[in-house]
């Protein structure tokens, strides 16, 4: 087996192991903590009989290991259990919301990634001059405000004062793609602002790192202009770190949507999760937590795989 296949197989196996361990952590996190779940669902005034019934229904009396295994095997077959509060099948309730969340995160990425890389290149080209300084000042400001507040600031000025876009992002299946995009324009703008700063800074750092290599000096001495040096020599060598940053930020996007969905009342998984946390609906929270963690780990894994594949020393072993 060539070393690169082995390396990739190891990386994928590691991710699967990580996911398994995380499922244990998520499951354990909801049972070892202080507080009686049945009590918190029913409130302080619950009768002992009602409490006992709910505990039996939740399976709290069974040994934890048995419950965990039953839960895990169910989850692997797509059975995430039923919600305590509504009695709905969780997998069914989640499927359309999951696609909504991916839809939002996808379009945010389509806007944010090229913009961040372009601005990063711009910052390198004009290093220590006003474009670079302006970009870093805006970055500092945007990481200093929580994302939900950026959401309300944009909502107040763009949706309410200027009336350019709707202030809530309601989507349904009957809408055309354009109508949907119009509805989610503001959430996309917020998410872009949230990840842009970090992504751009890392792009700038990665390219600056490459710019110090000897072959860049050769290219400069050869008489190429600054953009050509960056585009033809620095950028290909900076791809691995940049892809890494992009993937990490996409992973962050998937989590960032949780809060943004609540702000814009968007029917996605994040809003569903937050709703059910306050209702203390443990099976729903476990299911959502597991899915979010799986997406997060999957994107991190892709980042590592791209880094391995883009490294010529690993692609062409001696």
């Amino acid at each position, binding site marked *: 087996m060539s070393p690169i296949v082995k390396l990739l197989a190891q990386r994928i196996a590691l991710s699967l192991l*990580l996911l398994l361990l995380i499922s244990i952590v*998520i499951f354990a996190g909801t049972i070892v903590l202080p*507080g009686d779940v049945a009590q918190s669902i029913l409130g302080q005034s619950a009768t002992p009989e009602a409490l006992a019934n709910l505990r039996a229904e939740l399976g709290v009396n069974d040994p934890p290991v048995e419950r965990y295994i039953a839960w895990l095997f169910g989850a692997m077959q797509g059975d995430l259990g039923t919600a305590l509060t509504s009695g709905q099948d969780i997998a069914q309730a989640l499927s359309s919301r999951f696609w909504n969340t991916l839809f939002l995160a996808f379009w945010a990425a389509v806007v944010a990634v090229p913009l961040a890389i372009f601005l990063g290149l711009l910052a390198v080209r004009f290093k220590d001059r006003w474009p670079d300084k302006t970009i870093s000042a805006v970055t500092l400001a945007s990481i200093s405000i929580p994302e939900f507040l950026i959401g309300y600031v944009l909502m107040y000025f763009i949706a309410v004062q200027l009336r350019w876009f709707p202030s809530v992002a309601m989507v349904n299946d009957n809408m055309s793609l354009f109508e949907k995009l119009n509805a989610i324009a503001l959430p996309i703008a917020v998410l872009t602002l949230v990840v842009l700063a970090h992504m751009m800074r890392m792009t700038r750092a990665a390219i600056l790192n490459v710019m110090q290599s000897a072959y860049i000096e050769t290219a400069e001495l050869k008489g190429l202009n600054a953009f050509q040096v960056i585009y033809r020599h620095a950028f290909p060598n900076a791809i691995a770190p940049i892809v890494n940053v992009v993937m990490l930020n996409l992973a962050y996007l998937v989590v960032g949507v949780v*809060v943004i969905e609540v702000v814009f009342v968007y029917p996605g998984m994040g809003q569903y999760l937050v709703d059910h946390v306050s209702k203390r*609906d443990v099976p729903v929270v476990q299911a959502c937590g597991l899915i979010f963690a799986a997406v997060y780990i999957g994107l991190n894994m892709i980042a590592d795989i791209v880094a391995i594949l883009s490294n010529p020393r690993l692609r062409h072993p001696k």
Partner: protein
Amino acid sequence: MKNIPISALIGLFFTALYFLGAIFAPLLAPYGVGEVVGDVWEPSSADYLLGTDNIGRDLLSRMIYGGRTTIFIATAATVLSFTLGSVLGFFAAVMGGWIDQALSRFVDLVMSIPTLIFALVVLSVAPVTIPMLILVMGLLDATRVYRLARAVAVDIEVMDYVEAARLRGEKTAWIIFREILPNALSPLIAEMGLRFIFAVLFVSTLSFLGLGVQPPEADWGGIVKENKEGIVYGIPAALIPAFAIATLAISVNLVADWVLNRTTSLKGGRG
């Protein structure tokens, strides 16, 4: 302490201002925290400098008391995460071997779950009280501090003076607190600023989601939650905490930047 750059001075000034405001909240606030004093969403006037909120409470008073809660929780969580994270990080670096491996792999595991998701999972079963919030935020953040503390301590641990202390027969606790801690302090303090900001943003986010500080207690995230309906009618009450959080975060950032630059230049400008 001379030659403090102007940006760091501005940062220090506003950071101090916010902390003093938090400490002396009852003296500064013109009205009580839950006191209904006027109409719903009154504009700002001489009586109510920032106007009133969704049920007619004075917004300025609520912002001052809210700042107190937010800053208190963030500070407590930061102190907890730093104490735990740095001590464990130093311990892992000094001991090495399987203790280091076990701790580091466990931290990797916790860090591979997004912080907000983990916090939501925990808060779905745990009672949402202020001590619980501090505990959850402190423990989750301790993993980040552990990473940094361990990385810094591994470099210090191979220095000759640590070797000398070992040969003198000093115990592990001495090596951690007398040899490593003083030399790792500067990067840790700079990081502390950033973790503090993160804690402020995090507790505000949780409160905004209704899973943080519970009413009638005020905090900056909660004020946004209470007044968010006003946005649609063009009432900017919910945006006031944005201003407070942003200025606090930027001030702390400026100070942290300065501490970081100072420590790197102390190494002869090599960093």
